[in-house]
């Protein structure tokens, strides 16, 4: 589902390529920011939108091109120190931009967070997680993988409860959602931004309010039906 947001990806390597490949459908525009003329030509040749940048840039141009509040920035430079420097200079220039940065390990991850990244993707940890998952619990790993990366008909969705929904005021455990709607509600995110899982004591006692966000797993059609019933919208 495309949003009105723009995304920019710093770096031109296999990581950046994979990021662009995966997020392309999610944004209005996606642009590479590369450091060398050679990379720029290569990216343009492949049909991507690309621009040159320098670590010493003051980023005014970036502010002029995009609405910073709606901008998603991915810092995927190969050199860790450069990536941290880039993150910190972007954060210094734009307080509100969403910055996701790649980190090789925990140590650079911490530094990137300190430098102002909203999210850090720890590469080594992520790979190790997938490998151990495949070894220790192959079935659940495969299913979770398909679910997360939308490679199957099963979908993960977040649905907001509407003001006028008939379920407002109901307790989560009052309704057997999985039997009635064929979807499994995993968690509920309160409009006061605390997440609770349905199966925990706190989740059981949760009373649905307008604005609550439900994390739901189900088939596309069931999710759509469920969404209609609860009078909410998928975000």
């Amino acid at each position, binding site marked *: 589902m495309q949003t009105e947001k723009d995304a920019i990806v710093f770096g031109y390597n296999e990581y950046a390529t994979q990021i662009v490949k995966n997020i392309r459908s999610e944004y209005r525009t996606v642009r590479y920011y590369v450091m060398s003329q050679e990379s720029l030509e290569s990216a343009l040749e492949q049909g991507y939108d690309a621009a040159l940048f320098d670590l010493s840039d003051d980023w005014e141009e970036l502010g002029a091109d995009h609405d910073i509040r709606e901008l998603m920035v991915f810092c995927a430079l190969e050199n860790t120190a450069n990536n941290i420097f880039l993150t910190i200079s972007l954060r210094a220039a734009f307080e509100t931009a969403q910055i996701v940065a790649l980190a090789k390990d925990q140590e650079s991850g911490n530094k990137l967070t300190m430098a102002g990244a909203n999210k850090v993707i720890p590469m080594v940890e992520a790979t190790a997680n997938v490998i151990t998952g495949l070894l220790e619990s192959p079935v659940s790993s495969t299913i979770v993988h398909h679910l997360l990366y939308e490679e199957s008909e099963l979908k993960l*969705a977040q649905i907001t409860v509407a003001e006028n929904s008939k379920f407002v005021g109901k307790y989560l455990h009052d309704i057997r959602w999985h039997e009635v709607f064929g979807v499994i509600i995993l968690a509920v995110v309160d409009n006061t931004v605390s997440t609770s899982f349905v199966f925990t004591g706190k989740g059981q006692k949760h009373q649905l309010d307008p604005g609550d966000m439900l994390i739901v797993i189900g088939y596309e059609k069931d999710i759509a039906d469920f969404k209609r019933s609860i009078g909410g919208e998928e975000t």
Partner: protein
Amino acid sequence: MNLIARFVVDSAYLRLASEGYQRKKSFFNDLLNNDDCPYKRYFDYMMIALILMSVVILIGEVKYPVNDVWLFFNNYIISIVFLSEYLLRMWTYSDNSKIIVEQYEKDQMLQRRFRFEYAMKKVLLKKLEYARSVTAIIDLLAIVPFFHQMRLLRIFILFRVFKLFRYANSLRTFGSVLATKKFEFFTLMMFTSIVVFISSVLIYVMEANNPDSPINTLYDAFYWAVVTISTVGFGDITPITDAGRFVAMIIIVAGVAVLAFTTSIIVSAFTEKLDEIKERKTVDDVSKLKRFYLICGFEDVAQQVASRLRRDGYDIIVMDQDPEHIKRAKEHGHIVLPYDPGALDSYKRLRIDLGKQVKAVLCLLEDDVLNVYTALTIRSMNKEVRILSTLVHEDNRKKILMAGADEVVYTQELVGMIAKEFSGKPVAMEAFHALRSEQTGVKLEEIAIDEWMVENYTQVEELQHEKYHLILLGIHKKEKDWFLFNPIGTTFLEAGDILLMIGESVFINEFRIHIHQKRKK
């Protein structure tokens, strides 16, 4: 060819062709010499026990009368066991039939008369080669008490103690380490012998004629010299003349040198061999492991994977050649084999059964070429073992799969997918990640259904998992390899099904106990 020769050749062919004979011979050979043979350990323990019993009886006999049954056991039973072992070792040492047949066929090919005597000589020489080895001589001496009832020969029982070298691995290692320093020990022995010889003659000449001196014979002098040079110095015999004391001073200084030299030889022998000994021990330990993950390469990802698997109670073995990586893996407390994961020889040295002992091989080197090479090496030895590999460049995916990897994990792709998560449904993804991280106490777990459970629980609704506040995400049907999401209550359960349960880990554990307990009833 005379009749006897004919008979010998015929029977040699018969033995070579006989499966039963060869099987028996190879069984005994394994039992006596092959460390990998599962029975060898028990055989060794039995022999050690017999040796110790023999020595206990010898000691007991010195002052107290020993029961006739024990004496009979010691003199005959134990001796017969040892004799049988000696003969079996001699039998398995060489293959007579093969020597005879080879000689016969060679002579036939060269169209000359079969040289029977020459063949028999070769057979005998081969057996003699065994009989002349130190261990065989010790074995033979240990049997001697059986043939002679003479009191003095009883002492030969002590030779049985030397047999321990054969059965105890650590003693064997000790012996082999010292054997590497033969030349040094020989030099030292020569030096010591010369000093002892000169000192004993000198002290004898100086002291023997002095009536006050306790040294009267050359034997006394020799005894004194040995006691002094070893720095033991009992003090029962001491020189009294000035000249004798001077000799004593020289031999004491020499003694200190001998002692220091001996110590340094032993220490240096062990230091030089230490790595080898440790490596042998590691290989031994590995070959005894029942199920383990073999991690090839120890870089960043491997380091994390290894720690997690260890934490979750799995055995892992790291194989890497890079000294830096080896050091790091050792610091993390892993068992490390300093071999090249891409070389066939590494696995041969390991003596492991890839199919039976290895749960999966993880090629986690940060180089596609090496991973392909490793996967190919493993596949060439075993078609079944699961191979999982990381991928550095997308272009090489096909090559790694062709080399035999079952699964490929490509970090860049993962990063791309995670980036998508953040872009699409960040809240949902975060909730899902919380489920998978360990801090929340909430888990997604696999529960396997076996045949016994199916007898008690035929349908999903009978599981009563909701009592435990668990959500059944779905059932993985093994046979059809498909996932049944959100199954209805009347769904039938089958052996081999895997339930994916989400809930608090405490409740999941209780649920597990609940379904297992009912099974017992």
